[in-house]
């Protein structure tokens, strides 16, 4: 890439953004770091330096490890579900059939729906007495008795994952679809002539083109899923018996409900660290994939 701007001019152009990032991202982040070594309260007194005490308590706490596990399960399962569903839908919509364009247009709908409205919608659907899911499953004979989807720790997290996947699979599908269109026609034709079966064609001809974009989608979605707050807040608030209390919900509770800003900050930083490690690992994988290892 040949530059048309001198370094000085480039920096000048970036100055406004840098100033803003320093003041509304950089400073708060550093301050969170500072707070994590104190016993500061959200409002009022406190703020003595306590060293690593917050972190020590955190790692010794069952609540933390449980939330960590729940967050990981939520992120891994919902992202996998979105990936599989997204690719399948993309393969479907890549075919030529009547109504395809309408279907492609509809695909944008769940994605455009605000997260909070999505949560509200599924909360209504899962309602144990008057919800549509129970009524549907019972009336179609798939189930004998109404179930308490969000009230049972065995199903609450799964119910949240389904709601999250429904909203987010279109993103993966749209990205995959764009990638499919980038596969040269000639290559696909050649594979058919060679007599490769459908699965082999997908594995060796299509997948290499999909891998890169899918990886990017996966990184974005995993990071998002690891930070999850909205959908859980509206649907279960972490219940029942804290079986859906993810890390972000735990931070809210610690820092804002209980007003322990210091220990909330240490927890927030652990989440940041986890997300960063995840992203670094992913980027390494993408690099390798781009190096033609697929």
């Amino acid at each position: 890439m040949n530059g048309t701007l001198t370094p000085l001019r480039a920096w000048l152009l970036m100055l406004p953004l840098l100033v803003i990032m320093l003041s509304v991202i950089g400073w708060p982040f550093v301050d969170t770091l500072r707070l994590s070594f104190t016993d500061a309260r959200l409002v009022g007194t406190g703020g003595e330096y306590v060293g690593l005490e917050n972190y020590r308590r955190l790692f010794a706490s069952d609540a933390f490890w449980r939330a960590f596990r729940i967050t990981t399960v939520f992120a891994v399962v919902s992202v996998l579900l979105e990936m599989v569903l997204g690719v399948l839908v993309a393969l479907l919509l890549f075919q030529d059939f009547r109504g395809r364009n309408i279907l492609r247009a509809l695909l944008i709908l769940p994605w455009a729906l605000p997260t909070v409205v999505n949560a509200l919608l599924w909360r209504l659907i899962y309602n144990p007495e008057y919800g549509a899911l129970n009524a549907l499953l019972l009336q179609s004979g798939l189930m004998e008795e109404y179930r308490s989807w969000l009230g049972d720790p065995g199903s609450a997290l799964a119910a949240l994952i389904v709601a999250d996947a429904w909203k987010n699979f279109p993103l993966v599908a749209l990205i995959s679809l764009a990638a499919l269109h980038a596969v040269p026609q000639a290559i696909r034709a050649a594979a058919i002539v060679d007599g490769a079966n459908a699965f082999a064609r997908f594995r060796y001809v299509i997948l290499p083109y999909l891998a890169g974009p899918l990886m990017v989608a996966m990184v974005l979605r995993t990071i998002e899923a690891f930070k999850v707050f909205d959908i859980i807040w509206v649907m279960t608030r972490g219940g029942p018996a804290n079986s859906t209390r993810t890390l972000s919900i735990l931070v809210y509770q610690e820092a804002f409900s209980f007003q322990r800003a210091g220990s909330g900050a240490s927890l927030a930083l652990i989440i940041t660290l986890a997300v960063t490690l995840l992203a670094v690992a992913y980027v390494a994988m993408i690099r390798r994939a781009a190096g033609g290892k697929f």
Partner: protein
Amino acid sequence: MEQRSLGFSVFLYASALLLAVLILAPFAWLFIMSISSTTDLISKPLRWWPAQADWSRYRVLTDLTPNTHGAALMSALKNSVLVAAIATLAALAVSVPTGWALSRSRAVNWSLGLVIGTYMLPPVALAVPLYMGLAALDLLNTRFGLAVVYLTILAPFTAWLLKSGFDPIPRDIELAAAIDGARLDQTLRILILPLAAPVIGTAALFAYLLAWDEFFYALLFTSDQRAKTVTVAIADLAGGRVADYGLIATAGVIAALPPVLFGLLMQRTLISGLTTGSVKG
């Protein structure tokens, strides 16, 4: 396209139908709930279609009499519109020059990673100091304060999107302009911006939708109708303290309408934006 067997065609159309139902059914149900009477909504077995369409909740929720559900939702909508607009404009103002700089100079290229890196920061890692900072500046529970906070989400995103949008614009014209003695701002304003208009539009649309969707900061930093956004208003309604499910559903429909309409009308723009970064790498 290759020749298809009949069996495959049937499979194809069946899958397509299933997908359409999967996407549309929840939307349809939300809407049906919003026009069903309360009795229909709590009948067993459940009534899938209202005995009589009841539009009264839409009237209730658009009623502007002070201190009613309607006034609360409408002021929340207004706050969302304004906060998202201020935040979007501010984000574009700082990220257009940044995106151009990132696209045209190698010296600042490394900072792109930094910009994208901020996306990884969970809001909870910034929330406590931001809360204290806003409190100190007396900006809690103000639209402006919330819009400034939204910049943390929007600006890195738009900068990155704009950079990839500026990349394909040929550099020759800029060089020619520089030779002719055009100033930096003239080059940007007269030459680049018109060429980049589509990608700037895409960035604006995305930023707006992102801001509209935001919940966590709004929950923490606003307390009443002076700044409370529609996402928080919806969450308050859904909190299990409103007896009428239909009213909750209606509020959901109203809050979803703007972004969903945007999505349908501008889907080409949206899809190109969604796929730009990922497919081109």
